[in-house]
């Protein structure tokens, strides 16, 4: 692929010292006015950051999410009990101003706040890792299909279609029953492996439109290799859509995880999750203990909203073409 160094360097330097004739002098002197260009070059990420912090709702979402992550990390330290702790406290207790009973207790006397603090970890882990998995598979499949086109694209897209048409829930229940399920890795793998199709399609359509952009053709004309064009030129330009769709995926996966817990094919006890707390509350709602489903539900709502807000802000901030000056 690479040519001998000496040859090119030679070809380029045999002209040296380069002619600095007066022919282009006017172009130099008559260069665009000074004030046209900003005094200090702003890096891409500085620019993104500047735009992001102007987006108030996204900022709120980001701060909320950071708090949630801190909660997931330090939650077990803050929790008045562990899910495994044997307890002899009163069940079905309404919330009161007391750390342990702040959100009430469930039928077995476990503090709802324990579910919230421990469950944050599960929810975020599932959301983040399943998203990373879908993004990697989706980007690979989509970029290969979109870049090479032709039969490669056809194969990639049929594969995508197959995964898109797989009946998600029945498959999940089946696999869960087959493997025993119940642990978080299983949930992440299932969600990740079955949900990359939309990402792949998105990336492909982006690559198709990027292919016709002149900077990609310019790279081809320079003799840049296909993998380098794909990953150095096209992917960075598609990255903003991947990031935005990924944040939205995170929210989707958090909800999906809660849903499959609710159906009893996700996380099992002794693990705890928000979805599980919701599921367990189901048969007791008639008793009027509203706090049991309310707080896990609120936790889910706040997380998903924060992630969506963040995604919204990123969408605006990552658009390089919108100029900040």
């Amino acid at each position, binding site marked *: 692929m690479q040519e001998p160094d000496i040859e090119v360097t030679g070809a380029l330097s045999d002209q040296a010292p380069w002619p600095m*004739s007066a022919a282009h002098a006017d172009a130099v002197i008559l260069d665009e006015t000074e004030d046209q260009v900003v005094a200090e*070059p702003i890096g891409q990420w500085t620019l993104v950051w500047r735009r992001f912090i102007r987006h108030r709702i996204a900022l709120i979402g980001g701060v909320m999410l950071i708090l949630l992550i801190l909660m997931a990390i330090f939650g077990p330290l803050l929790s008045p009990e562990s899910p495994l702790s044997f307890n002899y406290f009163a069940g079905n207790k309404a919330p009161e101003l007391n750390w342990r009973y702040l959100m009430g207790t469930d039928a077995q006397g476990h503090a709802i706040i324990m579910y919230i603090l421990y469950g944050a970890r599960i929810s975020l882990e599932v959301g983040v890792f399943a998203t990373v998995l879908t993004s990697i598979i989706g980007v690979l499949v989509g970029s290969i299909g979109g870049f090479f086109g032709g039969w490669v694209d056809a194969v990639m897209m049929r594969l995508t279609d197959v995964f898109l048409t797989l009946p998600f829930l029945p498959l999940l229940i089946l696999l869960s029953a087959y493997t025993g399920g119940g642990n978080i890795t299983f949930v992440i793998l299932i969600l990740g492996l079955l949900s990359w199709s939309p990402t792949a399609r998105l990336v492909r359509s982006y690559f198709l439109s990027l292919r016709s952009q*002149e900077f990609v053709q310019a790279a081809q004309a320079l003799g840049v290799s296909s993998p380098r064009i794909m990953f150095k030129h096209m992917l960075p330009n598609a990255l903003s859509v991947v990031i935005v769709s990924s944040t939205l995926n995170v929210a989707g996966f958090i909800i999906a995880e809660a849903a499959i817990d609710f159906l009893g094919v996700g996380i099992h006890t002794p693990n705890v999750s928000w979805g599980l707390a919701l599921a367990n509350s189901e048969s007791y709602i008639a008793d009027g203990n509203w706090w049991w489903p309310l707080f896990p539900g609120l936790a889910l709502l706040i997380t998903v909203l924060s992630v969506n807000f963040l995604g919204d802000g990123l969408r605006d901030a990552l658009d390089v073409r919108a100029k900040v000056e």
Partner: protein
Amino acid sequence: MTEVLSEQQPAATASDVLLDVRNLKTYYPVLGGVMRRRIGWVKAVDDVSFSIKQGETLGLVGESGCGKTTTGRSIARLLKPQSGQIIFEGKDLLALKGKELKRVRRDLQIIFQDPYSSLNPRMPVGEIIGEGLMVHGMKDRRERENTVKYFLDVVGLRPEYARRYPHEFSGGQRQRIGIARALALRPKLIVCDEPVSALDVSIQSQVLNLLKDLQKEFGLTYLFIAHDLSVVEYMSDRVGVMYLGKMVEMAEAIDLYANPRMPYTQALLSAIPMANPAMRSQRQRIVLQGDVPSPLNPPSGCPFRTRCWMAQEVCVEVNPPLRNVGPEHDAACHFA
């Protein structure tokens, strides 16, 4: 080979011809139906032959859809032509692959129309210009940076700009960056694909002057593609006029503009809006009827006959070949 060549282009001897395009055909498939099968071809470039001499500028003009851009991209090997030969320094570009093709790309660069989409928004200018150098073996970072700075200076930008991103520049500055990118590989031929049509008038003249200066300084040969006839006349030594994928007239620029032989060229020239009222009163205005026919379904015989005021029976039946009608002047018309 050289004999065939000298027959077609009597004035061009084999030695000073840099690029020789012979019977170039570039077709686009038209897909249709549920299965996206090919149901036809758009003959974007249909049997076009011409040559460019070392150091000259050949202009290509025509309206949208005439195939001028496709011709340029075929020569830059960004498209795969159906058939024909593109002989560059004795080698047929269409037969080259892999390493050999990559080596030729260094000698054959392209400048694009759109100063916005032609630069990768995620790359600093220094990388945009330096990438070609790196790909072609200049591995030393320092050397590359110096070369980039030198070429920024050559195109009239400050060397410090290397660290900035494209969005920080105006359209004219971006076009200079695109020129520096092409120039950095020290090519022999540059395909200029509408290099100034997206720029404001006052910026356009800056870039045109720059291109002329660079040609002198670096001994470049240009294929200059544009729809603006005054710009092409100003830039080119010889000019080819294209219509519906065919070359319909080719002559020395001064001769073509003073004495167009093909009716289409006459109409095209008369349609240029002119500021100068004295020149306006001199010319005879020809306003063509109708539109350019769809390239999907071109007319039989002469492609221009549907809009031509001179069309006869013979134009329907026979497509006139490009033939010599004067010194260094070819036209494809039965009546030229």
